[in-house]
């Protein structure tokens, strides 16, 4: 229990350090989110900067990003009197800044679900509409700690939470299957290779491992697209449509599109991304589990088990599995890293609207809030997986549970 608490504290520190690093990189780097080809007029720029708190000092900005702010006064917006930014939940729309997406009703401003832990969630704030009309915009920032990642800076009517809500499932839909594919196929393959060391089967597995490790995602993705979505598609078209007259295609549809290579849709859209990511992982996992199993097979207790006359599958499952799976588990941290960096390539290659793509877009557009938001989500994914791995590790290796020495 205290171990879990310790890990929790550690992960909090990591997230804050990473956020601080990204934050300071952004603010120190030349250029900003609002200087495009046609910069906005000075007054609007001033309002924009005020809205995103970029006129505050750097520590204040970071504090606001983390913990939010109840409301503040900013400069005049062309109307008489000061414009006030009032205490209303995260997403009041920014009428002064060009957003017309006003969700106010007759009673007030409707609060959408952006502060997941906010008291205003789903409520209607009385009187906010009048304030909105007379005094500019009402809003409140809840801060990351309350689950509000703020408003995107490049597309100023979309919330980062929306981006994450749309992007995370798209990424997980191929990341999790590819991880399962690699583990469920790679570990048995590695064990089998170790069991038949230096036999043809072993060489076959080693070759697959080498292939998966060396051929990078960015080569595999276009090749698989060409093979499955272009070449095989035309073969199948010739076979089923022209020769067998089996499939009726619409007039404008020229291909079967049986394994599509771009955009989202049904399950088939995730087949190729899963394959590309999965083979990369598979290669690494085959090599690791083979090495682990080889070491376990050489041990004395396995020799004893063999001498007792236990059948092969019992030896492999009962005596070899636990020690041999440990190096694979240790590798799960880098595996997450591999999946995340791979997601950048794969989502570009297959035009998937996932988190990786948003990450790249945020970095190149200098969308500060979106970049921070995606960074937090990616970090949380890594931390979560590492946490699960740690728990599995303590379960598999009793030495760690007793607080014994780490190798």
């Amino acid at each position, binding site marked *: 229990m205290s171990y879990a608490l310790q890990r929790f504290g550690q992960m909090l520190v990591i997230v804050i350090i990473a956020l601080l690093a990204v934050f300071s990189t952004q603010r120190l780097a030349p250029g900003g989110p609002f200087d495009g080809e046609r910069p906005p007029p000075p007054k609007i720029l001033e309002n924009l900067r005020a809205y995103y708190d970029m006129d505050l000092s750097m520590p204040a900005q970071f504090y606001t990003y983390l913990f939010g702010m109840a409301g503040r006064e900013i400069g005049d917006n062309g109307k008489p009197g000061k414009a006030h930014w009032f205490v209303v939940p995260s997403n009041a729309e920014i009428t002064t800044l060009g957003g017309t997406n006003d969700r106010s009703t007759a009673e007030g401003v409707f609060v959408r679900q952006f502060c997941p832990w906010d008291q205003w969630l789903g409520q209607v704030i009385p009187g906010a509409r009048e304030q909105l009309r007379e005094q500019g915009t009402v809003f409140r920032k809840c801060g990351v700690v309350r689950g509000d990642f703020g408003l995107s800076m490049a597309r100023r009517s979309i919330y980062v939470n929306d981006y994450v809500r749309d992007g995370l499932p798209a990424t997980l839909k191929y990341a999790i299957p590819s991880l399962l594919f690699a583990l469920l196929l790679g570990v048995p393959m590695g064990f089998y290779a170790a069991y038949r060391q230096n036999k043809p089967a072993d060489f076959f597995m080693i070759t697959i491992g080498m292939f998966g490790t060396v051929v990078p995602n960015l080569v595999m993705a276009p090749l698989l697209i060409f093979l499955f979505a272009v070449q095989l598609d035309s073969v199948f078209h010739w076979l089923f449509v022209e020769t067998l007259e089996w499939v009726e295609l619409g007039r404008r549809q020229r291909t079967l599109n049986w394994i599509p290579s771009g955009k989202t849709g049904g399950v088939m859209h995730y087949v190729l991304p899963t394959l590309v990511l999965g083979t990369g992982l598979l290669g690494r996992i085959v090599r690791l589990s083979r090495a682990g199993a080889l070491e376990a097979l050489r041990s004395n207790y396995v020799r004893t088990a063999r001498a007792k006359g236990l059948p092969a599958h019992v030896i492999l499952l009962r005596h070899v599995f636990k020690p041999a799976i440990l190096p694979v588990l240790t590798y799960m941290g880098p595996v997450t890293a591999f999946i995340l*960096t791979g997601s950048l390539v794969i989502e570009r290659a297959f035009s998937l609207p996932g988190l990786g793509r948003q990450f790249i877009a945020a970095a190149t557009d200098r969308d500060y809030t979106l970049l921070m938001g995606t960074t937090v989500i990616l970090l949380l994914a890594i931390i979560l997986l590492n946490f699960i791995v740690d728990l599995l590790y303590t379960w598999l290796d009793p030495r760690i549970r007793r607080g014994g020495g780490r190798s």
Partner: protein
Amino acid sequence: MTVLNRERNEEALAAAGEVLRSRSLTQLAIARFLRNRVAVGATLIVAVMILMATFAPLFELMTGYEMDFQDRNFYSGKAPDWDAKHYFGTDQNGRDIFVRTMFGMRISMLVALVAASVALVIGVSYGAISGLAGGLTDTIMMRILDLLISYPLTLIAVIALAYFGRNIFIVFIIIGLVEWQIMARVIRGQVISLRNSDFIEAARAAGVRPIGILVRHIVPNVTGVAIVYMTLIIPEVILVESFLGYLGLGVQEPNTSLGVLISEGANAIERKPWMTYGPGMFLVVLLLALNFVGDGLRDAFDPKDR
């Protein structure tokens, strides 16, 4: 271990042309490396690739200047054509893919040199400081390293490149900052085992000052390991560079890299698949060969084997 029999020993002596009483560890390692056929073959492939990359402008002379603007297929790219000396075809600007690949290889080689050196310097100093300091410093530095290993620094590199990277050397240095953790860990292990070894003890007993021990005993003993792990880092570094190039964050036009070429090819994969084949093949072969060289060197220098 193979036992050297008399004939082979004499052959070796005759080849050396002098009486050898004993061979140094490095000589043994080189001999072991040369016996590894795969590694030697891979080394040859890498050497040929380095030569090709070095003389990339020659290939340009060979194919590049005769552009037929009257050809209606000029701007749509042409499939590989050995008669026209477009071995990998041309791209949508009529540029020869083979020549572009050679120029991309140059960038990869530069990355291998610069970024891997950056990684070497950081990894060796981090590992050496951690190993020599010991105690609490060591613990803290290793905890940080543990964390860094399981977090994708590549993502940080993406951010850093998007914000700072236009200059090619900034790109290289940022890439070098990504891949140094394994090196640091290995060097630390080596330094610790050296620190506790008998000959260091003897030197200390003889009154050699710490700086003398560092320069005379630790540095020479760490160099071999550092070089071996540098060869293992090189393919990783090349991969990171092509990854960043694929995302459009690496080198900028008119320079090109293998990743950029593959990215261009991937965009046109349906109509012009040959644009991906050449660069992709070169990248895969380069990575494969470098991996074999690195593995061979590690096996040859592996202290466990001695």
